[in-house]
């Protein structure tokens, strides 16, 4: 069993960074040459994408988009039998409330939980879904609706990891309460239930979205995640609590790639601005032993500037760190000194990471070239070079994957299984034993983790909370006995009893449940969503309810003597704001609101109503209406190209969504001058064949100029 372990590991690539999260595999006897036309090609499939597949238990899982008509693009998770290359199943997921367009969808790789074989998928809409190996859905979480996750045009989406019982990832968000400040947050979810375990905010700022998948290491007895932040820094976070351990700020842009660790030596790379010099890019290393808090750049063992690996993660090979410059130049750097030992130009653009296995280096360049290289102490030998289609090459953005004695190469169009045919290299379908639970710590409690960390409740609903105790190093001690915990609520209506049983109030509320034990306090977040119907005329309101996402972006003042909600002109990054305010599992309801706007510097803000993930948009500048199932996917949108909406005039918008028995959804919108009676006919309509079957209600406001809202209603379909 022990002897078999490395071989079993060599058959897997369960996460984006590989079985050891370092871009390497212990696989042997990998091919030195192949050709797209058949040499050493086990099979190929006409599906590809931006992200690499993962391989586990004789299955390959590819997260990609659906083929064909872009008006029906979805993300899909495809399970492939690695022996035959046959598709076993696929699960399609519609995207929503996202600025990411179709051609950048399916950015992340899935992750397989090695204990259960369950597959975790994180979409460009920031929806997190767990599937069982048979393709049935285990649980899902809608981060936009629950946490105000923001997904931007660039598409960057983190590939999650599964470590112990936790699913870990990060996202940009502007949520409610202590998540109200826009920024990047790290999340840990319970892999069995999807419940939130912790949320961590170690970053003082946010520059850009990123997709640095975390690695896990134990340094000075602290089991920690190590991840590149959107604040230009690498971070160490306690694995089980999310508490910051250390931070190494090296850049003025987000870190997009993942670091590599060997012992206590952390190898990092980035391709953007450094601190205090005009030279961009860095390959460097820091010894993390004995380091906590802010680590200055001067404490690094070495750093070599001028090589620009923004996208590709570095990989270790012998005495070298191998990195890839954005211009598709592969370079080797001495692990002890940082000296650049050799370089070789492989193309012009690079996104995917290099992978090392069997003494070989595997690299696909954006120009559609795939290389099998043999790196040495003095240089690099090209064993094989193939262009995926002459003329207009297939673009390669994904990292190659090594498993089953093969290399799985993903272009934007195809998947290639390079290596022996079925059965020649594999020895079974192993699912290794789960890692043993860490020994409970005997140290004093230093951190209280209230679980679940977030609860979304109906009025009157009850929720049991527990208090988990951790020591200063983030080691688990025990679950606190109920009698030892002092429970309380903060800014939250409702009551909590001595056993941690919380009972929600009859109305809407949001705030915190707190647990204090031995002078240490932890908290969880609770939102209670009022029951339908809602009717809000904003009288006497001075602030948006805390149970709205982006609640800080709304103002309340009188317009023509009537109280109204105003999304004021906002020349900041958060100009386009979604206020989401209900449960992601609601369906078959109607929303209505009055809207008006004014021209400022030739510009008029746009307004929208959100219902079950559909948006009815009224455009101020363009004087038109759109009904959007997925904002960025123009081809799904239906529109009324001319619709007059004069300055300083109230119009009423109404959006109704109905799930129909045939599996489609009927979406109907209506807009008319508020002074007029409601017209009988709908203004705009769509029957959606790739429907959103549930989602939270909300309001959208684009503050390019002042836009105003009044008389907001949400009610069950009549």
């Amino acid at each position, binding site marked *: 069993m022990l002897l078999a372990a490395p071989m079993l590991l060599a058959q897997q690539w369960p996460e984006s960074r590989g079985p050891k999260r370092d871009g390497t595999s212990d696989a042997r006897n990998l091919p030195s040459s192949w050709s797209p036309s058949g040499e050493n090609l086990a099979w190929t499939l006409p599906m590809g994408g931006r992200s690499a597949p993962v391989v586990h238990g004789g299955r390959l899982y590819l997260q990609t988009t659906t083929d064909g008509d872009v008006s029906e693009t979805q993300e899909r998770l495809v399970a492939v039998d690695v022996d035959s290359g046959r598709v076993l199943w696929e699960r399609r997921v519609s995207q929503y409330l996202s*600025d990411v*367009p179709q*051609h950048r969808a399916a950015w992340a790789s899935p992750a397989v939980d090695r204990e259960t074989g369950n597959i975790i998928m994180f979409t460009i809409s920031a929806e997190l879904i767990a599937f069982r190996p048979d393709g049935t859905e285990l649980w899902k979480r809608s981060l936009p609706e629950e946490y105000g996750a923001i997904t*931007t*045009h660039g598409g960057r989406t983190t590939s999650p990891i599964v470590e112990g019982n936790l699913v870990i990832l990060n996202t940009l968000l502007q949520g409610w309460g202590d998540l109200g400040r826009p920024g990047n947050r790290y999340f840990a979810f319970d892999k069995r239930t999807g419940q939130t375990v912790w949320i961590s905010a170690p970053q003082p700022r946010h*520059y*850009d979205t990123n997709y640095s998948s975390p690695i896990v290491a134990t340094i000075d007895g602290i089991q920690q995640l190590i991840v590149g932040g959107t604040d230009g820094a690498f971070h160490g976070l306690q694995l089980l609590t999310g508490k910051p351990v250390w931070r190494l700020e090296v850049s*003025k*842009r987000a870190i997009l790639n993942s670091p590599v660790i060997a012992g206590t030596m952390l190898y990092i790379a980035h391709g*953007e*601005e*450094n601190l205090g*010099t*005009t*030279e*961009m890019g860095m390959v460097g290393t820091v010894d993390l032993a004995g380091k906590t808090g802010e680590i200055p750049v001067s404490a690094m063992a070495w750093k070599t500037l*001028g090589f620009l690996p923004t996208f590709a993660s570095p990989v270790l090979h012998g005495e070298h760190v191998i990195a890839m410059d954005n*211009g598709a*130049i592969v370079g080797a750097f001495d692990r002890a000194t940082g000296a650049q030992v050799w370089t070789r*130009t492989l*193309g*012009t*653009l690079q996104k995917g990471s290099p992978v090392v296995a069997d003494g070989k280096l595997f690299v696909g360049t*954006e*120009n559609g070239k795939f290389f099998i290289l043999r790196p040495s102490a003095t240089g690099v030998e090209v064993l094989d070079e193939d262009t995926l289609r002459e003329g*207009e090459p297939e*673009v390669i953005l994904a990292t190659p994957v090594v498993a089953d004695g093969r290399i799985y190469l993903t272009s934007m169009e195809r998947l290639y299984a390079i290596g022996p045919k079925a059965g020649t290299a594999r020895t079974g379908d192993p699912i290794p034993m789960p890692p043993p639970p860490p020994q409970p710590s005997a140290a004093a409690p230093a951190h209280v983790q209230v679980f679940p960390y977030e609860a979304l409740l109906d009025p009157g609903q009850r929720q049991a909370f527990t208090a988990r105790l951790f020591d200063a190093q983030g080691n688990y001690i025990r679950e606190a006995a109920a009698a030892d915990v002092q429970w309380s609520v903060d800014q939250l209506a409702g009551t909590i009893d001595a056993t941690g049983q919380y009972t929600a109030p009859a109305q809407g509320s949001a705030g915190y449940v707190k647990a204090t034990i031995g002078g240490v306090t932890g908290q969880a977040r609770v939102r209670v969503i009022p029951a339908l119907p809602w009717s809000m005329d904003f009288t006497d309101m001075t602030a948006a309810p805390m149970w709205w996402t982006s609640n800080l972006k709304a103002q309340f003042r009188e317009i023509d003597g009537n109280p109204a909600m105003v999304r004021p002109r906002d*020349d*900041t*990054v958060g*100009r*386009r704001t979604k206020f989401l305010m209900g449960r992601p599992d609601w369906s078959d309801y109607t929303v209505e609101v009055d809207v008006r706007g004014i021209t400022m*510097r*030739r*510009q008029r803000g*746009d307004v929208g109503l959100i219902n079950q993930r559909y948006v009815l948009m009224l*455009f101020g*500048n*363009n004087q038109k209406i759109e009904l959007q199932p997925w*904002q*960025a996917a*123009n081809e799904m949108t239906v529109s009324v190209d001319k619709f007059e909406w004069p300055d300083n005039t109230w119009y009423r918008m109404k959006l109704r969504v109905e799930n129909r028995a045939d599996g489609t959804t009927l979406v109907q919108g209506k807009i008319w001058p508020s002074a007029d009676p409601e017209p009988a006919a709908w203004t705009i309509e769509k029957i959606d064949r790739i429907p959103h079957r549930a989602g939270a209600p909300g309001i959208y406001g*684009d503050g*390019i100029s002042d836009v105003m809202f009044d008389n907001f209603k949400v009610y069950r379909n009549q």
Partner: protein
Amino acid sequence: MNTTTKLIGAVAVMAVLTTPASSATKGVPDWPMWGGSPDRNMVSDATGMPTTWDVKTGENIKWVAELGSQSYGNPVVAGGVVLIGTNNEAVRDPKQAGDRGVLMAFRESNGEFLWQATFEKLTSGRANDWPFQGIASSPLVIGEVAYFVSNRGKVHAVDIRGFHDGQNDGPKTDEALTGTHDPDYIWEFDMMEEVGAFPHNLANSSPVVLDNLIYVSTGNGQDESHVNIPSPKAPAIIALDRVTGELVWEDASPGDRILHGQWSTPTVGTIGGVLQVIHGQGDGWIRGYEARTGEKLWEFDTNPKDSVWPKTRNEIIATPVVVGDVVYIANGQDPEHGEGVGHLYAIDATKRGDITESGRLWHYNKIRRSISTAAVKDGIIYYPDFSGFLHALDAKSGEVLWVHDMFAAMWSSAFVVDDKVYLGDEDGDITIFQHGREKKVLGEINMGSSVYSTAVTANGAMFFMTRNNLFAIQQGAKLAR
């Protein structure tokens, strides 16, 4: 010299600027704008430029000046001053720290830093003002006045001497900073406030001139959703009175059909006896306007009708070049979008209306996406593309003469001086070719960091900008390193 003299006095200069082809002096004394002259043809009349230099030993290097970490605004040289757009990573004034757009002025003779104008980033973020891109506008210098577009979407007129001449030129005289290293603003025009422009990612236009008018692209484009043009009524191009800074005419032809942003910069030429402003716009069309009135004369679609954004339909980032009655332009995309198919055209701009068919002299579709600008000399057109290929074509027929693979992305343009062609790439290599109908590589010189800029010449020197340094290169010079 008072401000009025500065602004309207340079009549003699104007004659040169508007009739470049016949003067045979372009790039000999000065290089006062992007492309050296309003026709934007990347050809210099200078001679005697070195074909070897070494940034490490200092051989044939006259001086080097430190810029920020990223520089995209090509240098211009006029009146003994070199002006260049960059970012603020080489902070020259600790009181003006943080990410900013910066216009730097250096003394041409020795590279001494003279003054800088810095601009804080817009609070609206990358949708309008991408981090660390600095100022990507290449200034236009007329007499003693430089015109450029800042990262804040404003057109600025500044005194090229700054306050070194001991005067605060106006009408704008209320500058908060009036030290020797600070800028002397003459006027400014805020395109975001005045005409509602919503520049996508960065306003970068390099102004061009005809008599008393200057022309710039507003950069109007999509918002961060990339599906919405938030300001469809804002113009794509404006003409300003260069003395007063007042708006003279504007045109918003692309409307809400802008594919992405608008980063192409306008060109002026006399075509068929008509003074025209020519502008590649965000809907992938190139348009010609009567220069004084803004009357639209013609428009040409650079994309095949069956092309699809963003896979095969392109925007225009390159600058049009006018030679005789012909306009040369290639289309392409934001470098962030990677590589793809491109199209290069020779257009007969004497035609009127939609001249997509009638004005197409030739179409070369073997080029990849390109953001580079043409160099045309002796009937040969040199056109680099973003996939790393330099294409040399017969300018009259469009027939390919030769192609060279640089093995690195090209943002810059080929530059013809004397009988040589100089071209820099993202890997920091400058390749020197023999100008001619057959390919002959004379040499390759590494500059130490990416070359996004195009060479310029002035007063016997050649200037090359890397991402973070400006080099003055001159035969026989030796910089102590």
